[in-house]
């Protein structure tokens, strides 16, 4: 019987092979939606702490993704944002994901908590996750904290990629009793450069300002599309970043998944090959590079 790692291997291999085939046949006219592979790198399961969301039941989310033609979703857990019993949150995440071939669990680790290395080990060895997701602003540490560097080193050594949620909600609409500023990304470029082989993806980041200019030069840092707004915002991001560093991500179910899905192509500035790269190929590459 195949375990989750085997399933992931097969799914990733199938996706990557398909992507390679399509890439080599970029001139091929066969570019229908049925052949498009889509990987959402930024999904969260369970309940958002501040209100119910239309797709916050796993079954409903998966059903929706099937209608949208999304083949794979990297699923973190909203429980990992505020719960201190991270191990049980990651267990529930794995239990939910194993029921659906599309879902890939991405566990939470909070280096502010005693025993965080055990949580990291659990993500890697017990749950065979390909990566982990961090919420530095909700967990109360900065990216120049030595524990973050250590976490990145250990995750990289274990072959895990690391997703950092730069924010979860516009600061202007947050609950007045739980206002959380966006993560200060200024230290990130230096930390990533020090950890050889590190693969980091920023989630929900609005690419602008000095922090973006610095991170744009750091080739091991990837970006997602969830909060890249403006009718041509995603093509501009793709053009600004060499080396295929933009991965499709929606921040569903907090955000409506169709929003990012449409934004990728609405300006007409990306051809089918470039669309496929953003929708899936870059995500598939991130899997491969981590040796899963």
């Amino acid at each position, binding site marked *: 019987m195949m375990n989750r790692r085997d399933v992931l291997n097969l799914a990733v291999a199938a996706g990557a092979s398909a992507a390679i085939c399509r890439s080599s046949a970029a001139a091929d006219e066969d*570019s*229908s*939606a049925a052949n*498009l592979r*889509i990987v959402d790198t930024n999904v969260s399961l369970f309940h958002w702490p501040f*209100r*119910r*969301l*239309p*797709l916050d039941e796993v079954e409903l989310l998966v059903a929706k993704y099937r209608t*949208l*033609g999304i083949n794979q979703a990297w699923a973190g857990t909203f429980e990992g944002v505020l719960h201190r019993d991270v191990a049980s949150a990651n267990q529930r995440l794995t239990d939910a994901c194993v029921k659906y071939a599309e879902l890939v669990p991405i566990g939470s680790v909070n280096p502010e908590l005693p025993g965080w290395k055990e949580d990291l080990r659990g993500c890697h060895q017990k749950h065979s996750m390909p990566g982990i997701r961090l919420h530095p602003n909700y967990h109360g540490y900065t990216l120049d904290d030595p524990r973050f560097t250590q976490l990145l080193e250990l995750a990289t050594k274990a072959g895990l990629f690391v997703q950092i949620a730069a924010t979860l*909600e*516009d*600061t*202007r*609409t*947050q*609950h*007045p009793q739980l*206002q959380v500023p966006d993560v200060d990304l200024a230290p990130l470029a230096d930390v990533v450069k020090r950890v050889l082989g590190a693969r980091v993806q920023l989630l929900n980041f609005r690419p602008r300002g000095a922090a973006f200019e610095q991170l744009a030069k750091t080739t091991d840092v990837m970006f997602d599309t969830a*909060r890249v*707004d*403006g*009718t*041509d*915002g995603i093509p501009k991001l793709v053009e600004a970043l060499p080396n295929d560093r933009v991965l499709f991500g929606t921040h*569903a*179910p*907090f*955000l*409506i*998944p*169709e*929003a*990012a*899905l*449409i*934004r*990728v*192509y*609405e*300006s*007409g*500035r*990306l*051809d*089918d090959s*470039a*669309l496929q790269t953003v929708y899936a190929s870059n995500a598939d590459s991130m899997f491969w590079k981590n040796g899963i």
Partner: protein
Amino acid sequence: MNSSLRPGLPSPEQLKEYRIWDSYFTPAYSHPGSDGSSTLVADIERAMPAVRKGEFEKLCYFPHVGIGTTSDVDFEKMIRSRPEVTLKAMERWPKLLLGMIQLNANDVPASLDALNRWLRDGPMLGVYFRGGGIGSLTCTHPNFHPLIERIAELNGVIMQHTWFVTGGKQSPGASTPAELAEVAAKFPEQKFICAHAGGEWQRGIRAVQNSPNVLVETSGFDASAGFIEMAVRELGAERIVFGSHLPSRSLGTELSKVIAANITEADKRLILGENFRKLIQRPIA
């Protein structure tokens, strides 16, 4: 470059059936260009691929008419002396564009003159009040009263920018949905559009819930799930109008709020076009 791929969007036929009229189109929102139109035209062209993909029928934008809604003194002077420049974009896209002029409640006499020039004499359909920066004023200020009275006489629509920002207002001229509800109660026969539903829409919807002459507009914040469902439940679909905020925001963010919402197709048609069409019907005075 172009692609035939369109995941997440309904078919072109379905979109045409919705008859989408965009109440909040924001090309060159802050400044149309020193010549009065170059930046505006460029921004409209930037939005056109999305406008075509969305099969929009009409888009309503907010022209500056030289009454102090920009910080560019030379532009303000130029547009006052050459008002015909204001119409350049509408002349280029006559079947597509509608307009509601930006008013400046800090300057009541100039705003009243502008109402005569652009609403009474046409072709503008209403007014837009900014939510911060140059030309903005909180909508509860008494300066609004003579303006609203005149707009009501001219059967104009009022679009008021609103936000409920956690931690308080970011600009002294900003308005909240609660403040708009206060004003709307004084003018029960006049319709008001609460732009962005207050941004933090859970509070925004509640603030205008008991103001039947206030509609909410859907753009200007992330595509946070559940907004339209709550608005339909608490206000009714008849009190919601679609806005795109293109091109600074996107077809994806703004249209998905409605097309992906768990509401009836009839409600989607109301929100995407019918309500706004009804609102801007102006009996000839």
